[in-house]
């Protein structure tokens, strides 16, 4: 499959306009120049100290929690059932995203994860895949 446009470009660190599903990508975070705090999605100023921020990228983390969505939620363009995971990044932030596995039997808390592109209705957004 070819490259698809990003569902929400500001979430993704690369400025290449899109990616093929399954390709590794990085999340666009921000780091406070004053207190070092990381935020995702990227912010204009630090929510903790109001200091200026610089860009930062998140690419690999560990699985901190997971569940499944078994019944279609309103507005979702993802077929149920699907899985969700929390990726804890070493930078100090944890992010909720789709967990791209066939079954939760395949994963455990603490597993290494990488950020990859995943298709949503003709676009791609970020998801997490066991590394």
């Amino acid at each position, binding site marked *: 499959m070819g490259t698809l446009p990003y*569902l*929400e470009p500001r*979430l993704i660190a690369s400025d290449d306009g899109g990616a093929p599903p399954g390709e590794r990508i990085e999340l666009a975070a921000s780091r406070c120049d004053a207190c070092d*705090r*990381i*935020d*995702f*999605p990227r912010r204009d100023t630090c*929510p*903790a100290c109001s200091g200026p921020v610089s860009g930062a990228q998140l690419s690999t983390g560990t699985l*901190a*929690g*997971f*569940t*499944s*969505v*078994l*019944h279609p*939620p*309103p*507005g*979702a*363009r*993802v077929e149920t059932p*699907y899985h*969700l995971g*929390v990726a*804890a*990044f070493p930078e*100090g*932030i*944890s*992010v*909720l*995203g*789709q967990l791209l596995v066939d079954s*939760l039997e395949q994963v455990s*808390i603490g597993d290494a994860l990488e950020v990859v592109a995943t298709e*949503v*209705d003709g676009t791609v*957004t970020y998801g997490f895949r066991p590394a």
Partner: protein
Amino acid sequence: MEQVVIAGVGIHPFGRFDLGYRELGAHAAREALTDASIGIDEVDTILVANVGAEMAKGQNVVELLGRPGVPVINVEAACASSASALRLGAALVDSGRARCVLCIGVEKAPRGFVAASGYEEWQIRSGLGVNPAYFALAAQELLETTDATIDDLADVSVKNHRHAVENPNAMYRKECTRDEVLASRAVCPPLTLLMLCAPNEGAAAVVLMSRQEAERRGVADPVRLRAVSLVSRSPDDWFVPAVSFSTARSELSARAAEDAYEEAGIGPHEVDLVECQDTDSASELIAYRELGLCEPGEEAALLRSGATTLGGRIPVNVSGGLLSKGEPLGASGMGQVHELVTQLRGRAGRRQVEGARVGVGHVMGAGHNASVTVVSTS
């Protein structure tokens, strides 16, 4: 708040009804006014908590009560809407700006998943805007980090449903077993349908007065409103609809509890009963810790000891909680206050907590809002 008392309470049962939100709200308000022995024309200010109705909803409810011509202010803060209205009302009375405030919480929520919880469009489209998934992740964390088990999660539902049998204002008044809870439809593992509350319809109302005004009127059984804390998101809190959180996470309900106990001058060991935000079974166990009823890690032990069951040391959700009453978002907090006041007045019938003198209510809502209310007999 030395001077604020609850002079009357009213409720429209929680459930599903062939009535509009206006009628539901007006029903609860009339009951509260009658309970306080005052007329709508004697009220200084009316605060109406609601999440989803329409423009000028409070004014539309009040139209059914009369035309008092006083300020009607609509208040919305997701599941903390009622608590926000109560806090504003208490501040008006405490400051002397109002002598008598009517607070109404009312909701007629659509069935199913709660939509419009503040998620951005990309979250919704990519399947991340799912409230029960957030509750499920918190539940999983509780199971991973404490000795709580899936059976404990089921037993919270069993307890609250048993309590609700004696509450005519609850939606579900049937006992259920642990096996039934575990075998009910999986929603977001580990949570099953019977471990989650259902959004529904209902209303509750509270009349606030200064103590002097209540004395002047000879109000029977006034209950003191000792504190209504209210907190919003700090840098490290995490709840619906945020997609991320600092790994060093803080707890917003714990902060709300701390503020409320401090203002009330009352500690958690002096509390006789609690109505807490049991959006799901795990939320109740987590609230035990956040409200200071137990130490971190002892949540399940407190449940298993029977302390939080009617007849125990610190009964929690003797009304049946949201798990049994259902959750009319804008009305749930006012419903808790209705229950606490009924209990403190000794009028709760077969679900009465013997000798109840201090009650605590707790709500937490989307957008990061939490509130803890403390009421006492004197």
